[in-house]
């Protein structure tokens, strides 16, 4: 049977009825029914467009890293087929820009990753499209669905860029771009309905369904289908007195098809802390036993609050929902303001504060549908599966941040640090191809990290020990105190003795108050130049601000020595790798 549609589409019981019905009918009936439904949807409002010339299909192109864009695209393809619209679903990773010439209608669904970057697989297409050499697209009609996460600074940036570029190349926008936050199901469905209504019908081939079958075949671990792993060890590495502890966590990895290379991360499906769940139930005067459905799955409210829903970050949608429910003028006013201001407001308040400041009594199901889905947290894998094949090692720091007048603790990191051996965690692989070792085995690497940024490097270094060709490796690491915070010191010493690590330079802020992460790099300026000129790749991993500062200093230095814009060029040549958070 097909994957369940978003809960927002059908209330649970209704969907169950439909499923029953569909199961009871045979091929012929199904075919007739799809035709009937398609015909029905033709009566939809809006001018009926001219019939599609033979062979020309609507191109539904998706690009992303964690499967959301793809699932939206496949669902849309299916919907188009049902509606009798010949459509073909393509991954932007495979698509060539000139193939756009073969189509007259383009529905582009693309997310944003990194720090406002295109999803890794999309980069070739994206660059080709942005290039001056890109073809004119006067013949093309398009609309863009941008997936993103409003807690990131550059919300849906890639979608915006694609949208503008297509227009700049002469294509016509038949429907305005739709930006989606992490609760993208509803808005993307609405966008889909709207654009399909604008598209001409024709003979329907059925590629979409095939793609769908591929989708449901091939069991691989994803956010929707995570691997249950057992916690083997959870060791605090930092001094017990430190208020933001750093832990080394080992998970059992029984699955074979859990594909990861050094530099990749895992997504962790964290639980919300019990205290927060209790507070939410309190504020809403709801019972944890209340039955709700999330993504078509019936479960008690308390479980939904624990595993499925984000209880810290309010979405625009929740804002509107709560404004409506509480009838609070203050909230209504915000809802009336432009999206930018809404997001600004939402950054200053968390779900619980909204509930407390503007009391209201929501329906369980309505609440569940209004809250934004709890997002997986990503953690770099700190071991190479070629060295330790049946374990996943993580290096996790407790996330603390000042919010309003109190110090808050991060959901995911708190969850991980509290785990005990024997507990189970839900994880899935997250490829981070931007952050792999260079293909060429002898290319030198300069690894720069602060704190937990060491994690992927630990995997790199384990990998280097196995490499047939020695690869020059220079590690620069920063933390607080030499004596207490030198993460994996013993292992690094060993790697150094065995010659897998040529140089290890450290900065310990508490011991050397004037030093920064860049200090050792400049202290060895000559070495830095030599390595870079020998084609070294430079990696930056860890705290976004600190490492960005460091890259600025290093970049300026290199430009001063070798002539600007040398650093930018390296970046273009993919010799600079960033993994910042």
């Amino acid at each position: 049977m097909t994957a369940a549609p978003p809960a927002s589409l059908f209330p649970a019981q209704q969907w169950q009825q439909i499923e029953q019905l569909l199961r009871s009918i045979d091929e012929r009936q199904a075919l007739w029914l799809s035709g009937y439904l398609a015909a029905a949807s033709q009566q939809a409002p809006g001018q009926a467009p001219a019939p599609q010339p033979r062979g020309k299909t609507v191109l539904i192109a998706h690009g992303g890293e964690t499967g959301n864009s793809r699932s939206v695209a496949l669902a849309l393809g299916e919907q188009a087929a049902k509606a009798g619209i010949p459509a073909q679903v393509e991954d932007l990773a495979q698509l060539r820009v000139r193939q756009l010439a073969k189509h007259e209608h383009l529905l582009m669904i693309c997310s944003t990753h990194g720090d406002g970057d295109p999803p890794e697989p999309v980069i070739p297409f994206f660059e080709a499209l942005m290039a001056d050499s890109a073809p004119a697209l006067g013949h093309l009609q398009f609309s863009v669905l941008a997936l993103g996460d409003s807690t990131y600074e550059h919300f849906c940036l890639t979608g915006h860029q694609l949208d503008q570029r297509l227009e700049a190349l002469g294509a016509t926008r038949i429907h305005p771009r739709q930006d989606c936050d992490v609760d993208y199901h509803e808005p993307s469905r609405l966008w889909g309905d709207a654009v399909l209504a604008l598209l001409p019908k024709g003979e329907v081939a059925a590629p979409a369904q095939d793609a769908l079958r591929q989708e449901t075949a091939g069991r691989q671990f994803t956010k929707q289908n995570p691997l249950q792993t057992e916690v083997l060890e959870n060791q605090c590495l930092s001094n017990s007195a430190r208020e933001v502890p750093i832990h080394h966590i080992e998970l059992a990895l029984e699955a074979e098809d859990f594909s990861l290379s050094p530099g990749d991360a895992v997504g962790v499906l964290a639980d919300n802390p019990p205290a927060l769940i209790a507070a939410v139930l309190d504020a809403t005067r709801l019972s944890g036993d209340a039955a709700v459905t999330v993504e078509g799955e019936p479960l008690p409210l308390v479980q939904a609050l624990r595993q499925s829903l984000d209880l810290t970050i309010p979405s625009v949608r929740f804002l509107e929902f709560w404004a409506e429910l509480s009838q609070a003028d203050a909230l209504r006013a915000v809802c009336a303001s432009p999206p930018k201001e809404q997001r600004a407001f939402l950054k200053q308040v968390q779900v619980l504060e909204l509930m407390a400041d503007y009391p209201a009594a929501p329906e369980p199901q309505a609440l569940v549908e209004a809250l934004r889905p709890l997002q997986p947290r990503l953690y770099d894998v700190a071991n190479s599966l070629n060295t330790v094949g049946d374990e996943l090692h993580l290096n996790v720091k407790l996330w603390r941040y000042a919010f309003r007048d109190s110090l808050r603790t991060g959901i995911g990191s708190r969850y991980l640090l509290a785990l005990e051996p024997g507990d189970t965690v839900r994880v899935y692989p997250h490829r981070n191809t931007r952050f792999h070792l260079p293909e060429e085995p002898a290319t030198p690497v300069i690894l720069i990290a602060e704190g937990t940024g060491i994690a992927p490097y630990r995997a790199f270094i384990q990998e280097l020990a196995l490499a047939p060709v020695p690869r020059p490796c220079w590690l620069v690491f920063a933390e607080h105190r030499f004596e207490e915070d030198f993460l994996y010191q013993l292992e690094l010493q060993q790697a150094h003795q065995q010659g897998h690590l040529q140089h290890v330079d450290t900065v310990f802020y508490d011991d050397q108050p004037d030093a920064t992460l860049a200090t050792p790099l400049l202290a060895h300026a000559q070495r830095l130049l030599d390595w870079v000129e020998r084609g070294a790749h430079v990696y930056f991993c860890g705290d976004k601000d600190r490492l960005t500062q460091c890259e600025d200093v290093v970049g300026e230095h290199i430009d001063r020595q070798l002539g600007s814009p040398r650093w930018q060029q390296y970046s273009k040549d993919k010799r600079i790798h960033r993994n910042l958070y």
Partner: protein
Amino acid sequence: MVDRSSDLSQPIDTLNSNEQLKARSRFLRGNIAEGLNDTLTGAVPGDDPLLMKFHGIYQQDDRDLRADRLRRKLEPNHQFMVRMRIPGGQLSTAQWQGIDAISRRYAERGIRITTRQTVQLHGIRKPQLRAMMQAIRDLGLDTIAACGDDSRGVVCGSNPALSKVHQQVADLARETSDRLIPKTGAYPEIWYQEDRPVSDNEDPVYGPLYLPRKFKVGYVIPPVNDIDVYGQDLGLIAIVEGGELRGFNICVGGGMGQLDTRDDSYPRLAEVLGFINPDEAPAFAEIVMGIQRDYGDRKDRHRARFKYTLDRLGNAWFLEELAQRRGKPLAPALPFEFTQNGDRLGWQQGGDGLWEATLYIENGRVDGALRDQLQGFFQQYGGRVRLTTNQNLQLTHIGDYEREQINWRLDDLGLSQRLSPNLQAAHTLSCVALPTCGLAMAEAERYMPDLMAMFNRLKAQYGLQDTPITLRVTGCPNGCARPYLAEIALTGRAPGLYNLYLGGSFHGDRLARLYASNVNEAQFVDVLAQLFERFAAGRQDQEYFGDFLLREGLLDAETIAVNPR
């Protein structure tokens, strides 16, 4: 024909690895300077820690933290202990104040006065090491050869009554020390970063291999045997006639260290072999050291001390070799008498009319409140300072007129009870042991407060509170607190377990015997209780505990073997 199969004369590659290390070290340089710049570790890599000992520096780690740090994937908590060279233990007040300041700035656990009357500072971290060594230099002090296979700090006992002789002997001790220390430029080069020409014969007396093992020289002035002259490789016993220093009886081959695992390893008393004139002493010490340098065992470090050389080759051989090198045989020894090996606490007046006051320092550890009290005291103090081989602190060169006022100040600062503590204190010693000593098997210094209280209760129980009994505790058999010269000694075997030694003499001229092995507190308290009972009953007038045990033949009893597991 002497057996030379294991000494200097043999090809270097057949000798102990430490000998080869010394040979490679370019007169104790090694790669210490590079190691100091290695930021990947708080330690000094490779064999260099062995070489650093010759510079008075021990690499250690806080053993309390080892297991936890290993789990945290961190190296041990490396730190350094620095031992100064203070011949005769004499310091100016300014120097003591300087050491105090250094201990606060660079070290942990305060100032540690040692059983060889010098100062140890613990817990110094590598990045601060060089700065600290220069701070010590600026006090006119150094740490050269405070450890290592060389002549250790030369100790000198005290006898305030004979101030003039005392000063003479102290000066000879200093002269001897200056004469015997290594002359290599490695020290100023590494620690003061002076660059001087490196010659290929920087240490003419020692040569590139230095000594097979540590070599300890001590001067003592009867009747107080505070330095335990019988525990020294070379002891010089002042012979005084009519208030004049006539010369020295010399004794050789003392040593405490032993390995419980080897029975060809044992503590040994130095033997008195003859007499020499005063001025000859420093040169004489150099000759004796030279003999040990040439004939000492360089294959087996556990047999390398001078005491074993003598047992191997015999006194006859030694006296002959000595006569040759010295150009004449030894004169016969002269009579003398010792009465105690503990310090005389409290006030003593010297022949020159000047006073000195000995303050009791438990375990020689000057830290916390005590360090602050003394700091306060020394702010207004005109005399000098002397450290004793019983880990105590002496105020010396005090004029009659100052005495009363000093008493008041000691009173105000809560220090006066250190002039006359319970009399057991003056006869109790313990070594450093855990957490810094790498060789410790059991607690010693940290155990002392409890043990002392318990010991005093036990004595009181049998009415022995007014009878001093020498009690010494060490964390392992090495014997840093000279346990085998005490009436009662505990040497560590495992956490909470000790070997019990009994029967040394009150003035340290007789070795204690192993009485019970691997006993815990309950067990040795039980043993002592029984013996105290008999002592209280059968003691003859002022008889000492050790002498009593011997006279009663109680030491011949089969030693009680108790298995730790």
